[in-house]
């Protein structure tokens, strides 16, 4: 018996395609997997392969017709075989030949039942619900739970190919899941260009619930980004001296006391904040007051699985670098081990976020309310710099300050970044 080729569905949202060109005319022979026609979708023109071998007995649509997906477009069979549309269940589609404009309505009728008998024998996993008289009255002849219907729609699954295990053969969630398991590959094979061996597999979306931490970060960041008017100022620092000093110091101290670039920045930022107390501050909107904090507690953002926390280096302006290094290292260790203490993460008055270890040129951070500012630090890079009209290699690092415009303005932010330069570019100041 003859076989039917239908308009393939090439994407979740594809509802119809235009048959641009018949590659094989009626009466021509066609090999399995060779190109039968070209169709155009919203996104591209692709070739439709024949899943069968034989002679093109009948073209059911004309070039230029817009055809809904799953609608039969051609019949392929043995040479000289009589085409019995009725036997193929395509009786209604017969009219479509003469009046292609009316294709969709009859084709829809053809869609429900006949496809079953066609695919039945070639794909054993495609089990069909045998329509009882009662079921024939159901819309589309398939019983399906609302949830399963939605899953099928989202997954682009043809429900007529799913076997229902519920009462009266109702397709339920478990059946859709079983279908996924058994048949992850879809009909794309039929439309791959000839000779192509790549198989397109349906990729399943992964749905991940937000962790509590992620939700909390989300809430805070939405609040900050929506309510705090941010502005940003970026400054580039010459890090040559600091990198050399760091190398020298780390040669003297134990592994535990080794000082990171970030430790230098924490100390430098804390000392700069002494000069700019307005940036070590919180806005109290209710009272219309800015609270300039007496102590300088510098927050350091630390990545944890699926989120981040800010550990707090207290009184950072008054602590020697070695103490900062040891304390921050201990807090980061506790955060990563999931043993963080409340005092490790509470009470920062100014925050820093450093992505330097990830080869980042620069970035901008969202303020951590109720703080007034946050410093985002990029990587220290060896770059060509111009000194006295000559290009030379040099160590540079960019840092961007995000500031609450209700508390401060651009000039103050720029001056703070200049003050910071004093310490980062002449790092001996950090030691005396």
């Amino acid at each position: 018996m003859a076989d039917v080729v239908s308009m393939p569905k090439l994407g979740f949202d594809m509802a119809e395609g235009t048959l641009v060109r018949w590659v094989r005319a009626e009466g021509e022979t066609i090999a399995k997997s060779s190109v039968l026609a070209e169709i155009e979708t919203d996104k591209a023109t692709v070739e439709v392969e024949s899943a069968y071998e034989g002679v093109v007995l009948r073209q059911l649509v004309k070039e230029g017709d817009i055809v809904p997906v799953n609608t039969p477009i051609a019949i392929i069979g043995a040479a000289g075989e009589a085409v019995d549309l009725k036997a193929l269940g395509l009786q209604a589609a017969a009219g479509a030949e003469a009046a292609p404009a009316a294709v969709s309505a009859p084709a829809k009728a053809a869609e429900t039942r006949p496809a079953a008998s066609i695919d039945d024998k070639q794909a054993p996993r495609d089990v069909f619900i045998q329509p009882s008289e009662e079921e024939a009255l159901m819309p589309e002849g398939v019983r399906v739970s609302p949830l399963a219907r939605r899953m099928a729609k989202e997954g682009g699954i043809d429900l007529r190919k799913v076997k229902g295990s519920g009462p009266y053969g109702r397709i339920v969630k478990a059946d859709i899941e079983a279908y996924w398991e058994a048949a992850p590959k879809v009909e794309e094979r039929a439309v791959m260009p000839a000779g192509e061996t790549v198989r397109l597999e349906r990729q399943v979306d992964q749905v991940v619930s937000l962790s509590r931490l992620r939700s909390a970060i989300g809430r805070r960041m939405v609040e900050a980004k929506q309510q705090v008017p941010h502005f940003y100022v970026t400054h580039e620092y010459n890090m040559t001296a600091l990198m050399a000093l760091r190398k020298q110091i780390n040669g003297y101290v134990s592994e535990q006391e080794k000082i990171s670039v970030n430790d230098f920045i924490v100390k430098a930022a804390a000392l700069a904040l002494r000069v700019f107390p307005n940036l070590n501050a919180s806005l109290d909107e209710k009272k219309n007051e800015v609270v300039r904090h007496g102590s300088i507690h510098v927050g350091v953002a630390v990545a944890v699985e699926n989120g981040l926390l800010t550990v707090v280096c207290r009184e950072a302006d008054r602590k020697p670098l070695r103490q900062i290094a040891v304390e921050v290292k201990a807090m980061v260790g506790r955060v990563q081990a999931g043993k963080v203490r409340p005092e490790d993460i509470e009470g920062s008055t100014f925050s820093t976020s450093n992505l330097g270890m990830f080869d980042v040129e620069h970035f901008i951070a969202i303020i951590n309310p109720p703080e007034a500012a946050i410093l985002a630090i990029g990587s220290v890079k060896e770059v060509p710099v111009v000194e006295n009209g000559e290009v030379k290699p040099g160590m540079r690092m960019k840092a961007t300050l995000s500031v609450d415009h209700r508390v401060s303005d651009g000039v103050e932010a720029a001056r703070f970044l200049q003050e910071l330069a004093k310490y980062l570019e002449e790092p001996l100041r950090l030691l005396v």
Partner: protein
Amino acid sequence: MAKITMREAISQALWEEMERDERVFILGEEVGVWGGTYAVTKGFYDHFGEKRVRDTPISEAAIIGAAIGSAMTGLRPVAEMMTINFAFSAFDHIVNEAAKLHYMFGGQFKVPLVIRAPGGGGRQLGATHSQTPDAIFAHFPGLKVVAPGTPEDAKGLLKAAIRSDDPVLFIEHATLYQVRGEVPEGDYTVPIGKSKIQRPGKDVTLITYSKMLELSTKAAEQLALEGIEVEIVDLRSLRPLDMEPVLESFKKTNRAVIVEEGWRSFGVGSEVAARIYEEAFDYADAPIKRVAQKEVPLPYNRTLEQMALPQVDDIVKAVKEVL
């Protein structure tokens, strides 16, 4: 935590609220000298005196009418209906006065009234004294309706009801007074209008309240032996009805059974099922089932009465039908 009976929990709530606020007083039939038909107010008369624990004539309309008047003028009455079946005699006062005065006088009056009313069947009291008309009262905006299933919730909800400025119908179940449960020490309230997950599970959501919580829990224990994990949502309040935990649970399990003691038609199950379909239709993987009382005036004969009331087996069967 101490394990006490439902009766003690309700009694404690009343006692503590009367000690806390001298505007709180009790009125009803046989609540004083006799100590209450279900002995909830035993000892109150001697301690608080006849002014605050008032025996009334046998007239429910008079009880609720007096309670509404005193509530409007600054007291906080707790009126006891000997059974909820007798509340029909005061129906007009409850749903047409108490529930509406605040609204009809543009907020000038508040009606901080609590009506305690034991209901439910199973004690062979005949068709007129065994009803569960909770849904009827929950139909009226302006009246809060709560019906706890555990001593902990009973105490906390009754305290919340007494402190509420709105009229609250507090439905007790006549066969739950002896049920024991853990109750927190000290003063606490349970918010009115908050449903609660009483038992976590992943396969089916069982929505229930009051006495049926006890039966549903037994059904869940039986089903657990077969590996079926039932999640029980206790509505606790019928108005306001908190659907959040119900919908959250249903979106997880995709299946629901609603268990109520009242009749199925126009009942709590109908309302909950409709809301699930309205708000989570695309999560349904099976039709929602209702377990309810057979649609007959409840028989006196013990065997027939038990046949008409929902039983553990009915719940087990319904759960299996939606699986």
